[in-house]
């Protein structure tokens, strides 16, 4: 079991308040992603849950039990670090068995669990190597192995893929999602990469400056961003924002249109502009457009859209795909 509840959790480093007060409910078995720009407090929040940092105020509950003052070892959670944090002097086998040894588990049981984890993670043939002899992806697998053998009530991932190259990152992303499907254990995953958040999460928690901006499923966040920040942060490439007359026509202070929600035309439309860089990927075409009033816009067309640098273009938002925001940035 692994439900986690945060009640008005606050954290200050000296005078600086990093997390002014977070309330959050994480259900058992959920894959929750904390996402936000760097410095938004997402890693701090994870470390508070882990017990690696003391809270300044508020309460943390795991399975209904107050663990606010319990040490990291007592919380029954496992963590995978960005730097993998493997023990360099121990073999892969000993690394994975370390938490079991600390729990004073019998040698036979240790061996059984280690070989089980090694099988799941394809580490069988590396068990006697030292971490220094492994590649980045293998090291990350060992770190995950060390986490799963304990059968923790929840896994905490702190930007685990950011040290891997792009191709490996995609593979590991799938592997971690697959692992979650098999284990059905609560996972909390911290990342600044909204693509990771969108693809892996059951529930995304968007953070900014220590505040929870919105909590919801990826599609909820995509379809109904609570404010301009969430609208701009979720979705790739980012949402385009227009202010002034264009927004006033929709009765809003600002409107947002996602790159994939433009109707493009070379002859007519609502907003005229000029094509800057055109990225032709075959499957999609990304156009960097400058509207005649100077606003930069990114638009995505499905398949090939045959325009080039300097061509005239007209943009029209698709029906019902305009996000409206008031002066404070809140969604209307």
């Amino acid at each position: 079991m692994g439900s986690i509840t945060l009640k008005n959790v606050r954290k200050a480093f000296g005078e600086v308040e990093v997390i002014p007060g977070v309330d959050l409910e994480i259900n058992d078995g959920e894959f929750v992603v904390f996402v936000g720009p760097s410095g938004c407090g997402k890693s701090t929040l994870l470390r508070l849950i882990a017990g690696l940092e003391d809270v300044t105020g508020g309460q943390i509950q795991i399975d209904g039990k107050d663990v606010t003052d319990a040490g990291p070892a007592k919380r029954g959670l496992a963590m995978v670090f960005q730097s993998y944090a493997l023990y360099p002097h121990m073999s892969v086998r000993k690394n994975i068995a370390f938490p079991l040894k600390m729990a004073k588990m019998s040698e036979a049981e240790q061996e059984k669990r280690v070989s089980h984890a090694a099988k799941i993670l394809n580490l069988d043939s590396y068990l006697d190597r030292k971490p220094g002899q492994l590649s980045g992806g293998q090291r990350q697998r060992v770190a995950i192995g060390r986490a799963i053998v304990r059968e923790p009530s929840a896994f905490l991932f702190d930007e685990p893929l950011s040290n891997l190259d792009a191709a490996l990152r995609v593979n590991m992303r799938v592997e971690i999602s697959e692992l979650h499907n098999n284990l059905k254990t609560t996972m909390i995953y911290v990342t600044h990469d909204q693509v990771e958040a969108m693809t892996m999460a059951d529930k995304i928690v968007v953070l900014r400056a220590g505040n929870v901006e919105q909590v919801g499923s990826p599609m909820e966040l995509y379809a109904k961003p609570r404010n301009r920040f969430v609208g701009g942060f979720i979705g790739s490439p980012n949402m385009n924002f227009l202010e002034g007359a264009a927004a006033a026509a929709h009765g809003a202070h600002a409107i947002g249109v996602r790159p994939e929600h433009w109707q493009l035309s070379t002859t007519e439309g609502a907003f005229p502009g000029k094509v800057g860089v055109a990225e032709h990927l075959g499957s999609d075409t990304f156009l960097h457009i400058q509207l005649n009033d100077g606003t930069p816009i990114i638009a995505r067309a499905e398949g090939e859209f045959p325009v080039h640098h300097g061509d005239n273009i007209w943009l029209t938002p698709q029906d019902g795909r305009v996000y409206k925001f008031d002066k404070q940035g809140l969604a209307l």
Partner: protein
Amino acid sequence: MARAVSRNTRIGWTIAAWFVALLIFFPILYAIITSFKTEQEAIAGFDLIPSFTLDSYREVQSQYNYFRPFMNSVVIAVGSTVLALIVAIPAAWAMAFSPTKRTKDILMWMLSTKMMPAVAVLVPIYLIFLRTGMLDTRTGLVIVLMLMNLPIVVWMLYTYFREIPGEILEAARMDGATLGQEIVHVLAPMAVPGIASTLLLNIILAWNEAFWTIQLTTTNAAPLSAFIASFSSPQGLFWAKLSAASTLAIAPILIMGWFSQKQLVRGLTFGAVK
């Protein structure tokens, strides 16, 4: 960086390096040579070829038992080093992994005690030793040498520990390790090279220490440094015997240093090159 060096330049540098090394080593070498001379030869003047007599060694051993100060030196050097490590490892751990605003100041303050001339505290320490009955005891010397070398030991360990990523210790904590297990299973094994060179250097420092060992001992606890000093006696200087005693005193540490030179060089240059 690799630089093209001509053969001649290399030979030139090699000769220069050997010359400097010999120059530094010469006093020790000459003491060893002199120890194989007779007393007459020893005072006769500069001569690199001794008569290879072992008389001085025999006399040193018969007049003054070498093994007693030798054992004292071993006990004092090893004892003070082990004690210093026991105290310094937790101290350096705390400073490296949970530093406060004042950590740097504490380190500087500890080091500053090494800038004070030892003789400045001789009288108080002598009196403390006198009152507590620790004069001329191994225990007393172990304690005083431990205290003298502690700042350097803490500094060295602190530097090594700083190189260990904190996330690894946090991982151990997440894995259920207690503070003690964290130090024994994770920190210490990773710091072994650093702890080893600290240990070696401290043994050498303690072995060679000649101020406190001479001031606070007479016969019972006198180590080899005091043993050498006792040869510059009121009866006059006997160069050959003094040399033989010195050779005997430095031989163990020289041999130890020779076998551990790799570890020592790594220890002393640690952190200089990333």
